[in-house]
Structures are given as C-alpha cells and as structure tokens.
C-alpha cells in the first residue's frame, strides 16, 4: 500500500524528523492562501500515488503569488500515468547546499531491513544504482539488535565528516528504522534529504509503502488508503479471495495460482493474443468464488473471450466446474468461454461441464490458441 508524500512527511514529523513547512491544497485559491502563509518562494507538488511526477511536470517552483496560482492551475487535474491530480502540496522553498538519499526497505538476500544511503540524492535512485552502484551504501540491520547507535553513527560517518551532521544523521536513521518497524513499512524513503544553508538536515520529499499483509494490525495506516477505481476493484476482489489486476487486452483470464496465471498470460501473448487481466482465484476453492470471479472478469467490457485455466491442487476441478455451471446459469453470458481443467478431480469437473457444451481443450497451449481464435 502506498501513501502520499504529505502523509509520509506527517508521519516523519510525528517522530520529530525535520520536514519542510507545508500545506495540502485542493484548489488554486487554497494554494494562494498557503503561499501567503508560508512565504515565497514555494514549491507546488502534485500528490499522486505514482512515481515520475517531476518528469510529468507535476512539480513547480513559484517565486511569486501569481506563479503559485498558475502552477496550481496547471498541476491540479493533470493526468500522471493514469492518476488524476486532485491535490497538491505547497511547501516552503528551502535553500540547500547538497542533496542526499536515504531509504529503508526489505532485503530478500540478508532477510532483514536494509538501509541505503547515497551522497547522490535528488535524482532517480534507480539510475544511480544502475550507473554508479558504488555510490549507494547498503547496511543490513540485524533484526535482533535493530538500528543501534553505533550502526547509525557508522552510516552517518560514511556520509558526513562534520560531527554535528553525523549526530543529526545518526538520529534520523534511528528514527526512520523505528518508523519502519512501527508501521510495518515496506519502504521508507527520503529523496532528497537536504543539507540546508543553516547546516540542518531536512526531508524535502518523503515516500512510504506498507506491507499489505500487516495492514490488519496497522489501523492508522490502513485508514490512509486512497484507492483508485481500478484498485477498488482489486481490493473488492481480494476480499472475495481473488487477486485481480486489470490490463488492456481482450482475453479475460481466470486461473488458480499467481505463477500459473502469469504463465497463462505469457502463453496468450506468445501466441499473439492479449490478456485482459490477471485473475488468480487462489487456493482453497468454493463455487461462490468462481461466480464472483466470473462477475468481476465480465465487468470489463473489453473482454471478448474468457479463458479459464485450472490446475487442481487444493482447488478441486469439480468445485470449479460446479461454480461455473451455477454462474453461467445465473448470468447471461454471450461471449465464448474456453475451459481447461487438470489435476485434482479434473475428470469429475469435465463431466460436470459437459452440459455447457464448451469447446474441448486438453492443454494450456490448446486453450490459449482456442481463446485467441475465438477472439478474432
């Protein structure tokens, strides 16, 4: 789960991490009022739950009140990677001498939280990682010890030589780690962390992502969720035990298991078709789930064919078949359906399906090819 920059920085503030003075605004008038309050210059920044807003023109410096209003007018309503900008953050313009990067995330290899830090902040860190990997320092954090003062200091000494900055940075690293644990984050990032002309470290930007698996124990974080329409569909799906991601194609897919779902989509693509979605109906099966999945899938009007690919493990093919029969009886479905059943109780499942008079397919490849041919 993602939250906005301003929300991340509100959390930072709660842990006494210095951030820019700033106000969230929903209109150009609010932006003007905020600018008057903060004093010029200000930076107007789109608040959208996706990256790359800078390149998209979603961040503007304003040296006059008029410029602030103009920036607000330009940015509010802007579309950034499919997200409409509904609010902007107006932040005080800060003079700074240098920019740093600090980020904490989970490291699969050390199986721990890792802190990454770089003197090359302010730019896309992924590009630094590619072009100059040594410029990013990485410190895995022993889960038993946590961010000890000595580790925080060691990292800080690797970035700064002035001891007053070392102390500020070490303090910051300890707080960021605490935030990471306290909120079950999957990413906590400050980019850039700037050194102001007054010699203070300050978070100019902030980014936090959270572990979806832990949201059940993070009520406050969960309350910050702002899903897009597509995401609402995905969340609804999840509540029904389904994982749904909408794509652009025309072949609606229903598969059990994420890996098999991806392999199914890959195969459709390989044979020249285009999948309309990723839809994993998950582990344990029951007929209602299949009905829900079918409804979800058909809510996308681009879908011209449905391809169902089930390999029975826990999910029993006869359950899927029964669900399918029930679903098709309840719904008026006027597009073709291709079903491939294999694994646990596949014979029983195929038997049940007979009354639907569906085309017969045996393998994934056959099913994909059949779906593609029915699509055109």
């Amino acid at each position, binding site marked *: 789960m993602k939250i906005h920059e301003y929300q991340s920085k509100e959390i930072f503030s709660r842990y006494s991490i210095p951030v820019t003075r700033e106000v969230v605004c929903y209109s150009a008038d609010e932006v003007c009022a905020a600018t008057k309050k903060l004093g010029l210059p200000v930076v107007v920044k789109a608040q959208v739950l996706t990256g790359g807003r800078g390149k998209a023109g979603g961040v503007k410096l304003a040296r006059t009140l008029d410029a602030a209003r103009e920036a607000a007018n330009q940015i509010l309503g802007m579309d950034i990677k499919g997200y409409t900008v509904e609010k902007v953050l107006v932040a005080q313009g800060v003079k700074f001498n240098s920019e740093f990067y600090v980020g904490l995330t989970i490291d*699969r290899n050390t199986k*721990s939280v890792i802190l990454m830090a770089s003197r090359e902040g302010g730019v896309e860190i992924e590009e630094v990682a590619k072009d100059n990997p040594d410029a990013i320092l990485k410190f895995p954090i022993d889960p038993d010890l946590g961010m000890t003062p000595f580790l925080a200091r060691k990292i800080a000494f690797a970035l700064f030589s002035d001891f007053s900055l070392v102390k500020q940075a070490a303090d910051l690293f300890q707080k960021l780690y605490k935030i990471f644990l306290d909120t079950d984050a999957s990413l906590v990032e400050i980019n850039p962390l700037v050194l102001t002309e007054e010699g203070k470290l300050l978070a100019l930007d902030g980014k936090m992502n959270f572990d979806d698996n832990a949201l059940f124990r993070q009520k406050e974080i969960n309350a910050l969720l702002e899903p897009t329409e597509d995401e609402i569909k995905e969340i609804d799906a999840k509540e029904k035990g389904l994982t749904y991601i909408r794509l652009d194609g025309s072949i609606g897919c229903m598969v059990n298991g*994420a*890996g098999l*779902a991806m392999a199914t989509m890959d195969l459709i693509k390989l044979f020249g078709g285009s999948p309309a979605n990723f839809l994993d109906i998950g582990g344990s099966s029951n007929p209602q789930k299949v009905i829900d999945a079918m409804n979800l899938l058909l809510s996308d009007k681009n879908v011209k064919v449905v391809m169902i690919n089930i390999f029975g493990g826990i999910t029993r093919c006869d359950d899927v078949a029964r669900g399918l029969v029930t679903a098709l009886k309840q719904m008026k479905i006027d597009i073709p359906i291709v079903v491939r059943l294999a694994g646990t109780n596949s014979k029983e499942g195929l038997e049940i399906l007979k009354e639907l008079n569906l085309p017969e397919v045996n393998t*994934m490849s056959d099913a994909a090819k059949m779906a593609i041919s029915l699509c055109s």
Partner: protein
Amino acid sequence: MSILVNKNTRLLVQGITGRDGSFHAGKMKEYGTNVVGGVSPGKGGQNVDGIPVFNTVEEAVKTTGANTSIIFVPAPLAADAILEASEAGIELVVAISEGVPTLDMVKVMPYLKKNGTKLIGSNCPGLITPGEALVGILPGNIFMKGNVGLMSRSGTLTYEMVNQLTTNGLGQSTCVGIGGDPVAGLYYQELLQMFEDDPETDAIVLIGEIGGDAEERAAQYIKEHITKPVVAFIAGQSAPPGKRMGHAGAIISSGSGTAEEKIAAFESVGVPVAYRPVEIPELVKKMLKIN
C-alpha cells in the same frame, strides 16, 4: 536419497484442527507420509483422522519424535508457530500460511539460523519426495518417482510443470515449492546445492518468476557450484511494469527483475530457458540425453 523429506520424515501438523490443516493432514497421511501428530492449543488429547493432537509442539515432539512440521495456522500466528517448532527441535519447518507480515518473518530468521532449523515458506505449497513423503498441499497423484529435482516460486505452475514431466516419463526426486514471499526460508541456492549433493537427482528444473533478483543470483550460483544440468522457466514475461501479480515477489519496477533480465542471466551461464511449459520436458530430455 532425495532431499529434505523422505521415509524417515516424522511429520507434525501445526493448526491441525483448522479447515485447511485437517483436510491436508488427511491428504498427506493418505499419500503415505508418516504424520505422527498435530498441534492445536487447547485441543490436546483429541485426534484428527486418527492423528493425536497436542497442546504444544514441545509435548508433541517429546511424545512422537517428530522431526518435521507443517504450518497451517492463520497468518498473524504463523511466525510464532515457526518459532515454537524451532524451539522444540524440529529440523524442517514448512510454512503454508499465506499473508504473513514480512517483519514477522524478518524477526524469525536469526532464531532459526541459531537453532539450525530449516524453513520452507511461508506462503508456499510445500514439497514432496514422490513415493516417500508429501509435506504440503501439492496434489500427490501427479508426481512420479524419478531423477529430476524441481524448485519453484509458484504453486499451480509447479503442478503444471510436474504434470508435463510425469506425462513425458520424467519422474522427480524431490519437488519443492519455495513460495513467493519477500522473506522466505530455503531458496534457490540452498536447494540447488542439496540437489547437487543428492545422488538420486540427475537434472534440476528451476521455475522462477519476475521480481527480485533471486533468479539472477541462482544463475550465478549455478555457474560457480552446480555441475548437474539445470533448465529454467520464468513466469511473467507479459506482465506490465509496476503491477503486483499476487505474489509479493512478482512485481516489476524500475527496470530490474524483468523476465528478460532473468532469462538472459540463465542463458549466459548455459542454463536453457523454456518459453512454454511444454518445452520443459524436451529440454530436460536433451540435457539428460534421453530420446
């Protein structure tokens, strides 16, 4: 031989009185796995399908001599169940539970290392040594005893692959579903080494997914340590960037962890990559020089 589980496996089912736990305890027993007991706090003294239930893992281990445990408890309790198994001296823990908070798993790892406990999962379908022991939720009937070792981050895709192998006459030594969570137990490297050391395994199938760099690391490991033939498959070649495809692992962002990169990594170390599941048996046969 084989790896991790076999005829000597004495299995405990943690969460045996739950819906999934009881169902799969029965299935595993039916397959022939030596299921010696179950654990469910407060249900000690009962039995499920003739399997005795205990209140604590310690008590269960003392009474039954269990050496392996499979975990079906709800996600918020899974990390604690793993620790309990480790503390009681269980050697291999297989955590099926899905949705375990990542930081719970981070916290668990150093303790397992200290105790020398092996973990598979969480969020995994388990593993099987055909004809000897099924420790997981895999459909036992599709497997066949043989000399191909298989490891996979995916569940049903594994079944698909195994089905391809079996129907093409290629049996399996052991098949391991390692799961897709960000922080998991045994991973490609450790399992590759185990298969390398297992005299009954002659070829290895590695099924990967987009996201992370585990496949790239595995490729490097194969180059340096593995002499047996390995063939690979990567799911998610058609996945759009920035979308999470159900597994925490299956996310592509910022140009790293893509299927192309992973395929290139394998091919650069001489590991052939199948583009369709159906190619897997062909490649294995080619590597093993079987017609």
